Structures are given as structure tokens and as C-alpha cells.
């Protein structure tokens, strides 16, 4: 192990959603209706209360919709403009998902190389950690000029770069954070480095990989929307929201934000599902009884 490995351990863990997830029902645990109710009722009540107070106050105080739209106005706009915003959402999702796949694939390839070659790791990681601190969205105008304003690839490229760093840093950490006893065990069996990677490092890195791509899934959508802001076709979420907001059509903007949020949560949940299928053995999914 080298000094640089400390650096990996010190790097921030990016799975900011993990603590929430622990509360999701686990496989094999029979959730009684009573327990589910107790678990989710407060959130439901909070939601209703906020919506009602929001609606009530905006009506009572006569707040203009360009300051704060009423939930009812947003809902109306959502149903009326649904075909437009859903279509825009799909185009944005395509950019986000493609960029996500590209960025994740490159990140995994780099991580495997970093886990295999110490020299590569020493050179690569500090830079990756530094670049992770830079506002990568600033690359959007450059990519627009490189790949063309109307080419969806210029947005995909921004998403790929945004996704790349957290996934790469986390996966590398997972590949390196292996129980020394497991390495001794493999050594005692005269296993080759490739065997160690395949049978120990990759399974051990899976939880790190998944927590990073869960965050990356949400990030990818936001990055796509930011990239769209810097110009390009009008029929995507980022441009739609900005245009509507500039015309002070805030209920329309909120309805589109709702679409972005729904897509983000769906993308996240899909990855959560994949995680459960691929690592049913992991601690966080074990039933408590």
C-alpha cells in the first residue's frame, strides 16, 4: 500500500442517499401494514400539509403566480402541457442516460487499471480528486462548440464527464479496500492477481460502485439540463424551463421541473433495483429477523 491509498480513504463518500435507503423495505422482511403505515404516514401527512398550506397561503395573500405558483396551477399546467414536457423529458433523459453509460464505462475501465497498476493509481487519483472539485458543468460551452450546438452528443459528453469522476473514485476505492485476510487467503492458494481481482476485488467493489452510480444517475439528469442551458435544440427540458421562466410562465416551468424530478427518481430507483438483483448478499438488504 502506498501513501496515495490514504487519499482514497479520505475522499468523501458520495452515497448521500444511503441513510434514506436503509429504511426502504428489505427483501425477505414481511412488512406488516401497521409498520408500513407508521413508516410512511408522517411523510404523507407532511406532503399534504405543505401542499395545503402552500395553496391556502398563496390564495389568501393573493401571491402572483410569477412569484410562487399555486400547486393547483402547476397541476393544471402539468396535465395541459403533458405531451410537450414529457417529450422534452424523454429527449433529456436520452442525453442523460447515454452520457451516464459512457461515463460509467470509462470510469470502471480506469478503476480496474488503477487497481492493477500502482504507478497509474499514484499518478491518476490525486488528479481525479482535484478535478472532481472543479465545476465540470463549465465544460458545457466548450463541448457545444466542439461537437456542435444541435448535436445531442455535446450534452452527453458533459454528462459523461460529470458522472466519470465520482464513479471512478468510488469504484477504485472499493477495488482497493479489501480485507487483508482475504488477500492472505488468496495468496495461500497461490491465486493469480487476475483471480484476486475477479473473485475478491470486484465483488468487494460492487457496493461502492452502486452507491456511486445511484448518485450519478440523479446527477446525470441535472448535468444534462445544465448543459442544455448553454444552448441547443429548444425541445428539451433545460431550454423549456428557461424559456418558460423568462416569460414568467412559472406554473409551466414548475410542471417541467416536476417531470425532471420524476425522471430522476425513476432512474435512481431502477439502479436500486439492479443493485438488489446483483448483490442480494449485501448487508443492507438482509432481513432483520
Amino acid at each position: 500500500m502506498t501513501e496515495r491509498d490514504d487519499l482514497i480513504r479520505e475522499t468523501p463518500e458520495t452515497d448521500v442517499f444511503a441513510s434514506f435507503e436503509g429504511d426502504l423495505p428489505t427483501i425477505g422482511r414481511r412488512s406488516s401494514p401497521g409498520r408500513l403505515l407508521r413508516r410512511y404516514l408522517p411523510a404523507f401527512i407532511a406532503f399534504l400539509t405543505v401542499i395545503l398550506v402552500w395553496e391556502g397561503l398563496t390564495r389568501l395573500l393573493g401571491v402572483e403566480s410569477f412569484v410562487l405558483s399555486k400547486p393547483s396551477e402547476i397541476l393544471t399546467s402539468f396535465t395541459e402541457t403533458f405531451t410537450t414536457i414529457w417529450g422534452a423529458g424523454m429527449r433529456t433523459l436520452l442525453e442523460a442516460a447515454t452520457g451516464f453509460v459512457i461515463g460509467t464505462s470509462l470510469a470502471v475501465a480506469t478503476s480496474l487499471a488503477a487497481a492493477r497498476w500502482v504507478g497509474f493509481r499514484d499518478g491518476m487519483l490525486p488528479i481525479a480528486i482535484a478535478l472532481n472539485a472543479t465545476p465540470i458543468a463549465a465544460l458545457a460551452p466548450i463541448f457545444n462548440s466542439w461537437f456542435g450546438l444541435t448535436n445531442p452528443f455535446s450534452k452527453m459528453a458533459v454528462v459523461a464527464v460529470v458522472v466519470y469522476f465520482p464513479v471512478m473514485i468510488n469504484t477504485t476505492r472499493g477495488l482497493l479496500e479489501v480485507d487483508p485476510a482475504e488477500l492472505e487467503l488468496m495468496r495461500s492458494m497461490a491465486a493469480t492477481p487476475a483471480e484476486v481481482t475477479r473473485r475478491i476485488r470486484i465483488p468487494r467493489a460492487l457496493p461502492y460502485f452502486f452507491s456511486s452510480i445511484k448518485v450519478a444517475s440523479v446527477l446525470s439528469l441535472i448535468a444534462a439540463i445544465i448543459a442544455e442551458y448553454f444552448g441547443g435544440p429548444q425541445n428539451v427540458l433545460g431550454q423549456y424551463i428557461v424559456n418558460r421562466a423568462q416569460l414568467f410562465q412559472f406554473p409551466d416551468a414548475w410542471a417541467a421541473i416536476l417531470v425532471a424530478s420524476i425522471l430522476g427518481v425513476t432512474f435512481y430507483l431502477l439502479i436500486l433495483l439492479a443493485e438488489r438483483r446483483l448483490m442480494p448478499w449485501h448487508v443492507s438488504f438482509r432481513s432483520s429477523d
Partner: protein
Amino acid sequence: MGGANRRIARTGLSILAVVVAFVLLWEGYKLIWTAMGWENPVSPDDRTMPHTWDIFLTLLRPAQRNGPPFILVELKAALMTLREAFVGFLIGGAVGFGLGVLFVRSTMAERAFMPYVVASQTVPIIAIAPMVVVWGGRIDLPQWLSVSLIAAYLTFFPVAINTLRGLRSPQPTAMELMRSYASTGNETLWKLQVPAAMPYIFTALKVSAAASVIGAIVGELPAGLRGGLGRDLLQFSQQFTAAPEKLFAAVLIAGLAGIAFVGLVTAVEHRWVQANRRLIT
């Protein structure tokens, strides 16, 4: 101490190596692609990929005729963006810490609000930014403070989550020990839980520092706020065909601003770790 110096020297050396490698790759790409007549994925001409030295020289040349050098103008812009980011970082950090404490004290509050704290991060800030600016204008906030609020929106989340995690991190036996002393909830919080949470909080602050710079840059765009990095990036991207080096130079400055802020938080963390090590030994 010798080890620390060696480490710094090595880090400096590897940074230099990366810069050199990057320049070689960039210029090599230009050379080969020009020689072969390739255009994909990126055209190697000087309009699309200006020479690295041109980008560097742009930093030193005056931004406007007879004006101060570009680098000074952009550093000033970076300072303005960093000020917005920093204020947003402080607001977001305080809100995040408060939420963490609230959630650890009340399971009911956690169950009621945590899902929405998580969902809040799926909302693209660039979309809510124009509204935040309108709201800020209503209550006569200066525009840069509205941008700070946008930055705070990105900042509070990691801090809230990690504070909660950290406050829950002490061993059950440590909590029982405090209970055996008949310690009040506040004493347990400040003497046991908060110190235990500090490493978690610092981790979150590093993530938040980077996020707050992104928030400030992105927030400046719809706010139409002049003088910051965000506006400059937008402006230079519109002038890209005329002066591509300017955009690259500005992106470089933006990157350095992010690294500087995260570096500052990391330095504070190291100071904190050292101060506490001294207390223990």
C-alpha cells in the same frame, strides 16, 4: 515533518507531470489529426482547439484594449463567484447541520421530511434559480445573495445527511455511558455525538464546497448577474468563434476556483484533526 515536505514535493511534481502530459496530448492530437486530415471527434483547427500556449498567453494579455490583463479580470470574477459560493456554503452548512440535529432528535421529523430532503436534490437548480431570484428581488435581497441561496440549495444536502449519520455513529455503549451519568440530551449531543460526527461533517463539507461553486456559477446565469464566472463563461461561449482561447482560459480559472475552495476546507480539516490529536495525547 520531512515526510510532509516530501509529500508536498511529490504532489507538486505529479501536478507538473499532469500539466505537461495534458499539453503534450493536446498538441499531439492537433498535430496528428491535422497531418492525417481527420475531423472526428473534434476538429484540430485553431478555432476549435487553440494552442495551449495561446490559452496561456490569453491569461496575460489585456482583456480589453488598454485594460488590465485577462487573468486579473477573471480572478476578480472568480472572487465574486467564490464569495457567493462561500456565503451559500455557510448558509447551507448551517441549515444542513440543523436538519441533522433535528432528525437525530426526532424520528417523526426524519420520517416526515427526509424523503423530501432527498427528492429536493433531483430538482435541477438551474430551473429553480430564476424563481429564487424573483423571490429575492421581492424582499430586496441583493442579487448576489440570491445566488448564494441557490448555492446553499446544493450545499445543505450532503451536510444534513452526513451530520445525521455522524450523530448516530457513537457506539451504543458510549451512549449508555452518557446515560449512566444522567447527562442531558444537549450534553450528550455536544460532548459525544457532535465530536463523533466531525469526520463525517468534514467529508460532507468537502463535497459541499465543490457543489457550492457549481451552484454559484449556475445560479449566476439565470440571475443575469454580471461580473462573476458564470456570466463570463456564457459570454465567452457566445464569442467562441471569434476568441476561443478566452473560454478555455475562463474554464481553467473556474476549475482552479473550485479546487482552491475544496483545498481550503481540507486545510481546515487537517488543522482540526491535528488540534484534536494533541488533545488526546
